[in-house]
């Protein structure tokens, strides 16, 4: 025992010399990693989408440089004040950019506070209209303060501002698991190495750190690897529905993700009473992050009447009866008003979409009056590009900063012959419809989805089509937005439509001056409906419940296209007019087997995309990839922990000792064998009694043991052989073999050593 601790003490003496300098470097590195983590989140999640990456990085670097320069010239109090000023200044800058006067902001401090809370409960920063500006205002404070404190060797304090910054981004859901983990580890490393530097620790103590880090990684990742926790992680991502189409659309109130392969849910969502088929819009998104859509702006309570489109419109009255719980409020595009006996309140997004304030229940129903904008193509052609300021300056023309030039070039070549925004939209729509196939079974590409879909992928589903088209239009400076909802559904009566989960769809709205938002749908309609009909048929055959209403079972299906589409226009019209027929025929074909089953297959003409699937798909795809990543990370960190733990606890040497205890190994020279036999004996004795002290000779050791217990005579015999081999330098083969055999025997008997002799003399 003493020998071991002496050895350890000696080794600590040795590497104590490794020096505080390297610890300081490591601690600074930790602070650097923490800083980099939240700057990267801002860069990756915000400025790479809305622009300004250069500015952001320049700000961060400038803050660090300032902190380094000022580290020894200003006092901590001054520095904290400077950071505070920077933060307040940044906030004021953001407010002014967002068009809010400072006075107003101060007066409405409670709203600001509640906004901050809202952000911290999982609202992505990207929902803020001026997200980029916000990021610029956000960065300098924590970067400056934490680096300043780190330079002054206040590592613990330096982690506080950085940690808060990262924590905030975690709460907003912008920080992904790996970055968060990295930042956290950086912070802990800064504190740990800072302490080591301060107290003069040694490298040997770093194995504890390794264990702690590995534990943190393994624990944090394994939590998300638990089934049901897929969406977990630090980000409060909106959990999608249970693998249904609506999951993607309805699941998240403010964002719509793009996923991988999806399934269709044949469950009936609602029944609509309306004169004309129409797309049922549930969400409008304006900001594209590259792999998903986010709705910026805030929600305001619905107070009676919504803004109507600037141009001509027809009103369309719909009555919606819900068949399941639903978190959205499907309406025909441009709702003007809503009435309901059962739904108490609704709110309106900045984009004019109605949302329920709480989940709508199965028996809820509501009536909506919508303004259908359906101008003639000729009118749209002449609409010009004189966009009102609120459209021109909004996110409707946003492209992620990282969008490749090839994407814009490809778009430009597609719309080469088009002069007006309408022609461009039509050209893009027909190009996508004709050049890309429809498939629900696509792997989500990494990077910018619109870019990958246009340039690399051959097929996709509505989400991909709509995303690509929206982005392409924006590349051509045409304001466009991504819209989700449901297709028209299955017509069960003159004015009744049954809408299922699989009718979930995504499409595009394009803004035309003097007219407003006009619907375009780049998804090839026929393929989608075919897929939907198949899904319904499968569900019916398997006897799934909830896929039909009374009416939909009895009434032959007749699908109609929604009128909302700018169908009247040439390419659209062509497609659309074909659409219903195709749909009908397909429906009919598919209906026949259904009819024999006594059921009907619905055919949704308009949009029977499955968008909900996005979420699911994303979950699945994400889960797969994240699982492999997590498994890998867990495995790696577990390995690190095991190695460090083994080093710490000496398990490794224990194991190898034990192996040698029972197995002598290959024979070598008699002397070497005799020595090895004796070493095994020492291990045996050590485990039964106590280890031999370094300064203790064999005889002294055995004599000391002998004081307390009667040693087996074989022990003495082996040690004599050892002495011959070591101190006389020669030992006979027989003698060495005898020693090996004796130790083998003793090992097998596990040292009963004559008599009980459990009395170990620990150290004396």
């Amino acid at each position, binding site marked *: 025992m003493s020998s071991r601790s002496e050895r350890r003490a000696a080794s600590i003496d040795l590497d104590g010399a490794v020096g505080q300098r390297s610890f300081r470097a490591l601690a600074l590195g930790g602070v650097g990693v923490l800083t980099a983590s939240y700057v990267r989140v801002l860069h990756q999640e915000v400025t790479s989408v809305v622009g300004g990456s250069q500015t952001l990085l320049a700000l961060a670097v400038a803050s660090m440089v300032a902190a380094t320069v000022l580290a020894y010239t200003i006092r901590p109090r001054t520095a904290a004040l400077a950071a505070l000023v920077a933060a307040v200044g940044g906030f004021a800058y953001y407010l002014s950019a967002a068009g809010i006067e400072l006075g107003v902001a101060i007066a409405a401090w409670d709203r600001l506070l509640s906004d901050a809370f809202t952000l911290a409960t999982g609202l992505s920063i990207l929902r803020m209209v001026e997200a980029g500006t916000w990021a610029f205002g956000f960065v300098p404070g924590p970067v400056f303060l934490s680096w300043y404190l780190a330079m002054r060797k206040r590592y613990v304090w330096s982690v506080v501002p950085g940690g808060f910054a990262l924590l905030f981004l975690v709460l907003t859901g912008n920080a992904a698991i790996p970055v968060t983990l990295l930042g956290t580890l950086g912070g802990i490393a800064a504190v740990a190495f800072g302490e080591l530097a301060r107290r003069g620790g040694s490298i040997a103590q770093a194995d504890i750190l390794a264990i702690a880090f590995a534990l943190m990684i393994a624990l944090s990742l394994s939590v998300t690897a638990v089934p049901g926790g897929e969406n977990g992680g630090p980000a409060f991502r909106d959990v999608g529905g249970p693998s249904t189409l609506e999951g993607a659309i309805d699941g998240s109130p403010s964002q719509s993700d793009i996923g991988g392969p999806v399934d269709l849910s044949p469950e009936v969502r609602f029944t609509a009473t309306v004169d004309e088929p129409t797309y049922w819009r549930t969400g409008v998104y304006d900001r594209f992050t590259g792999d998903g859509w986010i709705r910026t702006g805030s929600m305001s309570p619905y107070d009676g009447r919504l803004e109507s489109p600037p141009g001509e419109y027809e009103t369309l009255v719909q009555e919606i009866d819900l068949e399941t719980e639903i978190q959205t409020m499907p309406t025909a595009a441009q709702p003007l008003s809503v009435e309901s006996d059962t739904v108490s309140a609704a709110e309106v997004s900045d984009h004019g979409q109605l949302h329920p304030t709480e989940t709508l229940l199965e028996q809820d129903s509501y009536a909506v009056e919508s303004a259908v904008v359906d101008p003639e193509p000729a009118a749209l052609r002449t609409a010009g590009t004189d966009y009102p300021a609120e459209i021109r300056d909004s996110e409707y023309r946003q492209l992620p900063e990282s969008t490749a030039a090839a994407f814009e070039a490809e778009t430009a070549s597609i719309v080469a012959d088009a002069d007006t925004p309408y022609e461009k939209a039509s050209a893009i729509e027909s190009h996508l419809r004709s050049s890309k196939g429809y498939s629900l079974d696509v792997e989500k590409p990494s990077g910018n989805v619109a870019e990958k879909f246009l340039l690399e992928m051959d097929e996709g589903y509505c989400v991909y089509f709509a995303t690509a088209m929206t982005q392409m239009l924006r590349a051509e400076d045409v304001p466009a937005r991504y819209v989700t909802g449901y297709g028209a559904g299955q017509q069960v009566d003159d004015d009744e439509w049954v809408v299922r989960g699989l009718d979930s769809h995504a499409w595009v709205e394009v803004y035309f001056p003097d007219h407003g938002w006009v619907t375009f749908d780049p998804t090839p309609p026929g393929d989608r409906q075919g897929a939907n009909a198949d899904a319904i048929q499968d569900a019916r055959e398997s006897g799934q419940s909830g896929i039909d209403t009374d009416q939909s079972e009895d009434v032959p299906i007749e699908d109609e296209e929604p009128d909302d589409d700018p169908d009247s226009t040439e390419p659209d019209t062509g497609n659309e007019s074909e659409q219903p027929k195709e749909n009908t025929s397909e429906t009919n074909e598919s209906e026949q087997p259904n009819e024999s089953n006594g059921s009907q297959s619905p055919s949704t003409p308009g949009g029977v995309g499955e968008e909900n699937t996005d979420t699911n798909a994303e979950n699945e795809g994400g889960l797969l990839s994240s699982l492999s990543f997590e498994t890998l990370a867990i495995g790696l960190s577990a390995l690190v922990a095991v190695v460090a733990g083994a080093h710490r606890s000496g398990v490794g040497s224990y194991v190898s000792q034990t192996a040698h205890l029972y197995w002598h190994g290959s024979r070598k020279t008699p002397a070497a064998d005799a020595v090895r036999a004796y070493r095994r004996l020492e291990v045996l004795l050590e485990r039964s009694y106590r280890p031999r002290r*370094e*300064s*203790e*000779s*064999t*005889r*002294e050791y055995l004599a000391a043991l002998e004081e307390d217990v009667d040693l087996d005579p074989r022990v003495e015999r082996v040690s*004599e052989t050892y*002495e*011959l081999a*070591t*101190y*006389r*330098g*020669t030992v*006979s083969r027989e*003698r060495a073999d005898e020693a090996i055999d004796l130790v083998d025997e003793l090992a097998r008997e596990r040292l009963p050593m004559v008599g009980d002799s459990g009395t170990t003399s620990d150290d004396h």
Partner: protein
Amino acid sequence: MPNTNSTARSERGQQPPESLPVDTVAALCTEIHENVGRVIVGHDEVISHVITTILGRGHALLEDVPGVGKTMLARSISTSIDCEFSRVQFTPDLLPADVTGVNVFNQKRREFEFRSGPVFANIVLGDEINRAPPKTQSALLEAMEEGQVTVDGTTRRLPTPFTVIATQNAIEPDRTYELPFAEVDRFMKKLHLGYPDPDEESDMLERTVGHHPIESLEPVTDLETIVRARETVANATVEKPTREYATRLAGYTREHAHIGVSPRGTISLTRAAQARAVSQGRGYVVPDDIKRVAPVVLSHRIRTRDRDRDGESVVERALETVPVE
């Protein structure tokens, strides 16, 4: 243990003609020890040390109060091995020639002839060596180191074996010439007899009331056997691990004291360990031999930095700390 010895002997192969088998030497040591034990009561450790000093070609320094049997010890040992014994009582007026001998003019032959001093003996007891002036001391010490004396330009070899057992008076330090540090180094061992314990003392009294047992002590061996036994000791194996251990011990004392053990000290340590190994019936030295002799071999060669500590504590600490392997 007998088994080990027989193996050792059989594997040693051809032995130099002069050396004796290890077992014989071990038995001889026991015999001498027992014989001496008839005169000296107790002090087994010291007796062993003196015997092994003779076999290890060294000299011993006994430091003690008067009257504890130093002279008796030396005499009984020399009687036991049937060798020539002489005793020199060192006094302040003792001259070097009184030790080494002197050339005397023989009137009859008209020439100088050498009249040898007491140093020409196999075992020389230098009593109270620290009472003599340095010059006289050094005459003896030169003889110890060189195995020869030079008188008037003529060098004469001393008999073999030649062992000095010097005693040093630990009391009355003001009337002594303390041995220089460099000369103390020439003694293989520094021993302390100390007072006998009460039982031993009464036993001693019982033996000495009548005739002193020394008068009737018989030799148990002869000089030739002793010479051959010394050869056996010199041939005892000192393997590398043992040598390295001795070196580490010396190194430790050099690091932890003002003056540590000299290389001569390391040689003495090894030789003493060899003698001990053989006296135990072993033809090879194990670390335990080193450990056993280290305190008496090393302690007097160490000058500590700290007055409160002495050489013994340094050696003790070294034995507790220095790894054996």
